């Protein structure tokens, strides 16, 4: 006699119950994958149009790399994070903060920047350490 567990109907029920659970346990998480976006900045945050890379890590933190930077000072802070909802980089909503002078501590050069998507570009607004408007920038790919 065939053991009950190997019978067709019982096996089908088992597979139906267990497979989705195993897939849910081993499937991808909610965090987005690593992503690097090459951007160009214009506006009064940068003295001239500059290119940089923005990297999004799985932990939702952001970092900026300026390939041509030799002076230490940067147009936008070099670190940040996605918003709580974890919207993708290109949708905006993220924050950047830190010293744009490249020197810590920086009571005079602290910037807090937010980004909003408008059509094909990201509009970035920065305030200083007191909350006063500091500069605005436009980011395009």
């Amino acid at each position, binding site marked *: 006699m065939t053991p*009950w*567990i190997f019978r067709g109907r*019982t096996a089908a*029920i*088992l597979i139906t*119950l*267990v497979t989705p*659970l*195993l897939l*849910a*346990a081993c499937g991808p998480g*909610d*965090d987005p994958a690593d992503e690097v976006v090459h951007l160009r900045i214009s506006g009064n945050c940068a003295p001239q149009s500059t290119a940089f890379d923005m990297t999004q890590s799985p*932990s*939702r*933190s952001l970092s900026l790399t300026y390939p041509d930077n030799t002076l230490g000072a940067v147009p936008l802070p070099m670190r*940040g*994070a*996605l*918003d*709580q909802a974890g919207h993708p980089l290109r949708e905006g909503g993220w*924050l950047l*903060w*830190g010293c744009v002078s490249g020197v*810590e*501590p*920086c*009571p*005079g050069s*602290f910037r*807090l920047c*937010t980004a*909003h998507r408008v059509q094909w570009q990201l509009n970035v*607004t920065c*305030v200083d*350490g*007191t*909350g006063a408007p500091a500069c605005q920038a436009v980011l395009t790919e």
Partner: protein
Amino acid sequence: MNDLLRNRVVVAGKIGMLLVTTTLLVATSKPADCDHRSAPVVFNAAGTCGPGGLIVVETGGWSSTVALANSAALGLPPLDPSQGASGRYVGTACPFTVEKGEWRFDWTCPSGRATGGDGDAGPVDAALVAIADGGAGGVGGLTMSCLRSCIAHLGQNGDLLFTCTGAGGELLCESRLTKVVLP
């Protein structure tokens, strides 16, 4: 007799399946959301700790570390892991709710200051000495010999307070932190 035995086996099998399914459901349920980093929170600081201004409080996922950007607004040295210093979230909420307090920073006194020697003060200690001496660009730093602890906690009226105490537990300064809703 065979039917009785078979029925018992079937019942035992069903119970086994139920146990396995329940175990798998429990094992694969999402845990409390402490493994995801909470988004940074921006506060406006105002009070007796430093000149005031915007600060950014960021938590580090399940490790419960806390970094505070623009700490000069609170008259403090850089409080960031990249600067060799970080605080910690001591609450139990997941994800961390820094806007409800329960996070703190602790220091020991800069070793060079007490003895007047050079010591091996790290960047935080050096910055702390600079601030205690009225340096660090004149950010309105605290002028005491040793800063010990700064704790964010809810006040009686529900305000979030950032309170710093010295080595003897004496109150050094207190600022109110108001969450800034960004546009």
